[in-house]
């Protein structure tokens, strides 16, 4: 479904992704772990279409199509979703209405019937339970005055409504207490299907106890330096990133 080859990206002349390769098949969950500043969020934002980053080399193919050629909204319309590490507050735009506008522009782009207010409300009622989101947050402006945990849950809620094919979760677990973490994980697990893939970026192994990955990658300094099964996450937890960082240096 997603194939990244030798991707190099920079911002303001500073190289951040330095030849990254990765392949994710439909139905799989891949975890990306790595120290702060290794370029995890940059990868996530580049995949979602952030224009701040210069693509210097490499390719990204999504369902056989050149993903890098598409505008951010086109990627979303084709099923790419990014749960932001730092969800943006948008005062003045109601969470419900924003999500309805988003869902309907995606449906419209796909040639599907747009949902009317009643149908949308029904969908929201259903999905809001999945992430245990306080319904009052639906009426408030997007992320405005939400707590850290509420923002993360709201991202998962958006994901549940938009039903992407490729979901990228950028440290959705950071700053969550264990109950919130379980809820987020349950939200993700409920969406796991054969046709859907997840790229779960995390700093800690903890989340992976609840969202069990098929593959774990370790990212250091803009590259994947090691890939393995879920036991790699445990190994990292006990040994730290040090041994892989030296490996990256040697490469």
């Amino acid at each position: 479904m997603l194939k990244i080859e030798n991707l190099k990206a920079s911002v303001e002349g500073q190289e951040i992704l330095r030849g990254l390769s990765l392949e994710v098949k439909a139905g799989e969950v891949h975890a990306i772990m790595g120290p702060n500043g290794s370029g995890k969020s940059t990868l996530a934002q580049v995949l979602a279409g952030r224009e701040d980053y210069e693509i210097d080399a490499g390719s990204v193919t999504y369902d056989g199509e050149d993903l890098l050629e598409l505008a951010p909204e086109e990627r979303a319309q084709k099923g790419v979703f990014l749960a932001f590490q730092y969800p943006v507050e948008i005062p003045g735009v109601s969470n419900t209405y924003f999500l309805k506008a988003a869902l309907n522009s995606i449906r419209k782009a796909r040639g599907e019937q747009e949902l009317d207010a009643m149908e949308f409300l029904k969908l929201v009622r259903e999905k809001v339970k999945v992430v245990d989101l306080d319904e009052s947050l639906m009426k408030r402006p997007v992320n405005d005055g939400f707590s850290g945990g509420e923002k993360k849950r709201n991202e998962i809620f958006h994901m549940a409504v938009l039903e992407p094919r490729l979901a990228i979760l950028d440290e959705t677990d950071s700053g969550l207490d264990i109950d919130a973490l379980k809820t987020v994980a349950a939200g993700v697990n409920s969406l796991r299907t054969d046709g859907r893939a997840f790229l779960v970026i995390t700093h800690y192994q903890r989340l992976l106890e609840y969202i069990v990955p098929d593959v774990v990658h370790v990212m250091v300094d803009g590259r994947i330096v090691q890939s393995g099964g879920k036991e790699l996450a445990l190994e990292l937890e006990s040994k730290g990133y040090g041994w892989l960082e030296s490996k990256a240096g040697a490469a």
Partner: protein
Amino acid sequence: MSVPVDTQISDSPALGPLLEEMQTLGEQGSTGPLLSLRQHAGEAFRRLGFPTTRLEEWRFTDVSRVANTRFLPDPRPPELAAERLAPFLYAGCRNVVLLNGRVVSELSDLDISDAPGLTVRSLAEALEEPAVAERIGSLLPPDQHPFVALNTALFRDGVYLEVEAGARLEEPLHLVFLGETPDGQATVSYPRNLFVLGERSECTVIETYASLDDGESLTCPVTEVLAGASSVCKHFKVQKESLAANHLASFQVRLDRATNFSSHAITHGGALVRNDVGALLDGEGAVCTLNGLYVVAGEQQVDNHMRVEHKKPHTYSHELFKGILDGNAKTVFNGRIYVHREAQKTDAKQSNRNLLLSDQAIAHSNPQLEIFADDVRCTHGSTTGHLEEEAVFYLRSRGIDEAAATSLLTYAFASEFVDLVEVEALRRDLQNFLFSRLTGGDIVRQAV
């Protein structure tokens, strides 16, 4: 206040018709104290002249285009077909309709015997009563501001509103000032309004300024509001004249003890618009809110010059002005707050925020605080900038295209003001304007 003499009047093409008009009005219309006020105003204007950008108060407002145009008053009697008025009306209001500054009686709800304690009249008629005539110019003397002088010398009509002590005006009073340029002649009007609000009275007044065609025009209105103790007045002004209109308006309110006055000014029409707005907080516990939204593009210029004067202790003022600028538009927000020595415990807040949608648009923002009391709280803030790229990206990453994302965020910027517009029909009209102005307006309409 002394005004430096800096005149360009002698060679102004606008002058000839003005002087003639003063002459005519002097001969036929006014008598008694009003006549001398008008003469005084005429002299003041001759002395002051059209302001130039060399004057500090007019540094950013270049009125030379106005001074160089030969504007004439509309010679026709004020008549208008009802269907031409219809698009400007709001449901649930009492209306007074003016064409080029004169009341169109047939279209105005002047017979309001069903509303006790309320008087709504053509100002020209009301002036026959000395008590009314005496109050003209009581807040805005004719010798300090060139366009107040011009209005005072030349106004023909306007609206007189009186709400007796304890009376309440149920429906909003909608004053519809329509401009028309007969045979394409550049046309000037000087509407003059006086609101006398008794103690504990309540009213809502909307002033709409709009054009019936897109000929060149100058509207030069003056509104004075005497708000009695504990009265509550909600004032709205909508400026949606054509892009060939010039609008130079002066407004002054005097608040008495515990008066609660609020004003919301919406400006999106006009080539050159300037609002000089003054509030005198002249009684303890007076509360004054002055909010505004301007939405401009192309070559438009909109200036808001605010002057809030705290004269008594425990007075409160709050100003929120938001601007959305596109194209080569230019705006000025000048916010003066003057706190007298006696006005302890003053609480004054002022905020001006501008959103730039183009790189060419310019928003000037000048807070000016003059504080002579020591125990006061005055805060002011001003920001001017583009939309946050990160927010646009967030929306786009959820499937909303760039134009719609930009429009949504622009609407969101305005919504803080929009939500404050209590009169529902007016709020909807403003929303519809914003939707029509924003690309991808349908998405925005859905999303808010």
